[in-house]
C-alpha cells in the first residue's frame, strides 16, 4: 500500500471545497481504480467525473495507467483558457 496525492481545480475544487486529498491504494492500481476509490470517499453530487481528463505528474494519462508511489494525480475539468476569444 502507498499514498498518492490527488489535486482538484476550478469548478471541482470549489464544489468539493477541497484542494487536495491523499488516498491509499495498493500496487497495480490503475487510474480507473483510483477514481473508484475516490468516488467511494467523496460525494461528487451531480458532477460527472467522466468529462474530466486525468494527469499524473503533469502529463495526461489514460485510465489504464498504473500509479506508482509518489505520483501526483490531477483531476482536470474541461479547460477554458482562451474562451474569451472563442
Amino acid at each position, binding site marked *: 500500500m502507498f499514498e498518492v496525492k490527488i489535486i482538484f481545480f476550478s469548478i471541482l*475544487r470549489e464544489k468539493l471545497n477541497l484542494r487536495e486529498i491523499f488516498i491509499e491504494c495498493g500496487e497495480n492500481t490503475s487510474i480507473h481504480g483510483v477514481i473508484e476509490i475516490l468516488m467511494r470517499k467523496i460525494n461528487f453530487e451531480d458532477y460527472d467525473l467522466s468529462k474530466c481528463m486525468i*494527469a499524473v505528474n503533469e502529463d495526461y494519462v489514460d485510465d489504464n495507467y498504473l500509479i506508482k508511489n509518489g505520483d501526483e494525480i490531477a483531476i482536470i475539468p474541461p*479547460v477554458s*483558457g*482562451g*474562451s*474569451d476569444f*472563442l
Partner: protein
Amino acid sequence: MNDRYIEITNEEIDFKKLYNFCKEDHLGAVNVFFGVTRNVNNAKKVLYLEYESYKNMAEKIISKIIDEMINKWDIYKVAISHRSGRVDIGQISMVLVISSMHRKSSISATDYFIDRLKEIVPIWKKEFYEDGESWLSSTPG
C-alpha cells in the same frame, strides 16, 4: 530551449518583451495574437474574470503544443504569456507571438495553437457578473 518563452503570470503581460524575444533580423514575419477580456459573454454583462491554472502542467503542455507546431510549420520562435488571477475588462488575458520567414506559417501556427490551448492546456476561466459567477467551459469555435 532557446526557441520558446512560456509564462503563466499574475502580472500585466509585457508584450514588448515577448516581441523582442521572437524577433530576429533574418525573419520577415511576426504574428501576434492578443486575447482580450470581453465585457459580455452569452448576452450577460461580465464585470471581470479570474483565471486559475495548474501552472507547471500548463507550461509543460504549452511546450508540447509548441513542439507540435514546430513539426508542422517552419516557424522560428514562439512566446506565450497567459494571465492567471483576476483580469479586468479590456485587459489582455493572453499574448501569443510567433516569428517565421514567411507569414503563412506563423499565421497558421497561431490558429493551431489556440485550438490546442482550448483543448488541453489546464487553465480555467471564471466570470463574475452582477448577480453571480460561473466557471466557463471551452466551447467549440
